[in-house]
């Protein structure tokens, strides 16, 4: 009897008390949200059209492509790695899809629906394979992912130009546009509710899936462990190699997916798109609170980081700010975000 009350007291002491580290973590994430809201209020005072549903959808549309890449990048960065090849993967993926569709429809004479589905499947598979390639070199030859993906950054872009011959490939059936530029529940022109862009739905579906993966599966938990301390994870029997394969595989897949979304928006497979996309994605992940040394980061943080960059870009454009100034401010923001995270970590 006495023993059991004592035990429950211990329990309360352990789980009942407010925890400092977690509180700091919440403050940090809320702080980013608060700054985001402050930014929105500021922009809404500058332009009455800013705080409308229509503009909200514009912001979301503008970030969905980078967003899908950044969500994948979050896995790689938490695992203590980096993937610089995603921007070129976007270009390659668009060109490859377009080339395959043209090949299936014109050379083999397949129907347009089956051609597109097949092309997309193959392209997403190539994305996964490129990710696995990086993971394999890292796992078995210990080549840092920075080096491998730096090489791929150049090489994949080269392949995209080789496939396309340097010219955009324009072959898609007209309905292909829906993937990257379609609307769900599309409202009347000028209506308060404009509908939901399909690419935004893709962004949120990817977000939810990765959220579940990171927090509610064994592989997700292992990604954090490997990124934080590879040797401790290995000695605890975690499959370090598998973790890297999953992280890079998913990132490659998502880069390919966002390439398909771009090709749908512009209805062409163009080898020049996506350049620099890796840096925007990394920026969003860093602003979201992930650490480049691995083991730390949240998928919700990255989502907020993406929205942050989107709102900032949109607001600054509406204010009529010079695009070059916008770049300077975005860059300064990345540095400020890291500084902020470091200060918070020092406190806790």
């Amino acid at each position, binding site marked *: 009897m006495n023993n059991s009350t004592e*035990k429950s007291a*211990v*329990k309360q002491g*352990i*789980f009942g*008390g407010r*925890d*400092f*580290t*977690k509180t700091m973590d919440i403050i940090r994430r809320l702080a980013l949200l608060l700054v985001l809201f402050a930014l929105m209020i500021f922009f809404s005072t500058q332009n009455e059209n800013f705080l409308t549903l229509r503009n909200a959808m514009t912001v979301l549309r503008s970030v969905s492509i980078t967003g899908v890449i950044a969500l994948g990048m979050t896995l790689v960065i938490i695992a203590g790695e980096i993937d610089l090849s995603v921007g070129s993967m976007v270009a390659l993926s668009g060109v490859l899809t377009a080339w395959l569709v043209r090949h299936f429809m014109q050379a083999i004479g397949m129907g347009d629906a089956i051609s597109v589905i097949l092309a997309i499947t193959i392209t997403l598979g190539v994305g996964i394979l490129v990710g696995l390639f990086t993971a394999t070199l890292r796992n078995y030859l210990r080549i840092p992912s920075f080096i491998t993906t730096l090489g791929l950054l150049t090489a994949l872009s080269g392949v995209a130009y080789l496939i396309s011959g340097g010219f955009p490939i324009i072959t898609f059936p007209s309905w292909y546009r829906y993937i990257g530029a379609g609307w769900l529940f599309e409202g009347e022109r000028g209506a308060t509710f404009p509908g939901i862009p399909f690419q935004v739905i893709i962004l949120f579906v990817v977000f939810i899936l990765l959220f*579940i993966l990171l*927090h*509610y*599966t*064994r592989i*997700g*938990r*292992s990604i*954090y*462990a490997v990124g*934080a*301390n590879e*040797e*401790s*994870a*290995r*000695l*605890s*029997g*975690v*499959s370090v190699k598998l973790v890297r394969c999953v992280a890079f595989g998913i990132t490659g897949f998502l880069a390919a997916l966002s390439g398909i979304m771009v090709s749908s928006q512009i209805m062409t497979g163009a080898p020049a798109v996506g350049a620099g996309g890796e840096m925007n994605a990394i920026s969003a992940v860093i602003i979201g609170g992930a650490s480049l040394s691995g*083991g*730390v980061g949240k998928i919700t943080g990255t989502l907020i980081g993406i929205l942050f960059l989107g709102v900032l870009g949109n607001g600054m454009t509406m204010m009529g700010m010079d695009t070059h100034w916008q770049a300077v401010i975005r860059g300064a923001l990345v540095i400020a975000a890291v500084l902020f995270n470091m200060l918070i970590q020092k406190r*806790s």
Partner: protein
Amino acid sequence: MKKCLRIQSLTKDYPGVRALDDFSAEFPAGKVHAFLGKNGSGKSTLVKSISGAILPTSGALFLDDENLDLKTPSDAFAKGIATVYQELSLIPGLSVAENIFFGRMPKNKLGLINFKKANIEAKRLLDELGINISPKTPVMELSMWQRQLVEIAKAMSFQPHVLLLDEPTSSLAQSEAEKLFEVVRILRDKGVILLYISHKLQEIFDVADSVTVIRDGLLVGIKDVVDLTKEELIHMMFGDIKVETIPDDLQFTNEPVLEVKNFTSKNHFEDINFTLHKSEVLGIAGLLGTGRSELLRAIFGADSYDEGEVTVNGKKLKKASPKRGKEAGMAFTSENRKEEGLILIHSIRENLVLASLRALRNGIFMSKKKERGYVDRQVENLQIKISSPEALVSSLSGGNQQKVLVGNWINTEPQILILDEPSRGIDVNAKQQIFDIVWEQSRQGVSSIIVSSELEELLQTCHRILIMQEGRIVNEVFPKDIEVEQLYAMCVKERD
């Protein structure tokens, strides 16, 4: 040259413990003074006070009549006390001469480095010490013992009165150590006050003239080596102590759980054979560098091995991998708790379930409820003192960190616990608690293998102790039949 290093009433207090108590001694030039003491005796505290690395609570150091009043290592250096540490400080990409004169290379009239002069001066210095290494050789081309000699030459280029050598042979083979001893003797004859720290008992007889024994922070005695036997020296180290052995209710069976046969890993251990029984607590004793840790790691699968086999419950393990070791029912905690055990930047909760993530699944998803149960169980059973399971594991004391590490593995419900130096860097109470955990596991049928540098601990904790020397198991003893001094003597290799 100064003639004598005098230590007067040196005392160092740490919170709750007096590491060094009113220590006074004189170390004259022309002799090699060895320091001996088991772990935690206060030996390192004394040595660090001399090298200026720690500030004593009271007392003073004198070189002849000069009060040294050391505040920092650079103070000690300026007053003529040079230290050669275990971890070498040489820069591999630079030449021997560049390393010796690092930061103070001779310059010519234009202010550029005069390599010719540097090489000539380095050559003269090396010759004086009888070291036959070209000053132009890049350090990365030198072997360990050569680097150690260059390190000594570098220290001597400052013309110190006192040279402190901290475990200089820890990574050297016997023949290589001999070459180092020659240099040490040359230095002694030059009138340098040589202070020599080593855990290898034999070396004291090989190189030292006098030995200073410290126990529990007190000076036990300073003796001339020629008058001493090994047994006397060991007795001085340990004193008259009675060690209690494992409680009687802890019995083990004859049922083998783990069998290691002809187990060999080149340069680490050779032809290891032993059997671990159900509920048995088995200790492995041996000096540092005898391959104890490497053996444990290879059994678990953390490192690969060359020959032999490991059988758990009659099943031979195919390939070394921590994952396979875990699945076979083994658990392993590394001696480097912070680097290879815990994930310091993660929470206590995450660290307690790292090895048992598979068991926390409910379908394909993690069950937070199961996880809480697992965390809760270890926190209660192992009495881990925490404010919250979400606190970072790095915020815990060493003892509680060790409990988290052990708890992580007990959550996998292992049959064999392999613990490498589980008591390193934790206080006395926590040590006993860790061993209580091992005993409690034994009562439940779990077997353990423990490696520890503290021989008394092994005698207190284990049913049986294997003794390793230079990569081989040379003896097997039962704690009830043996004194700690005898055990220590058995760990020290007899040489002709």
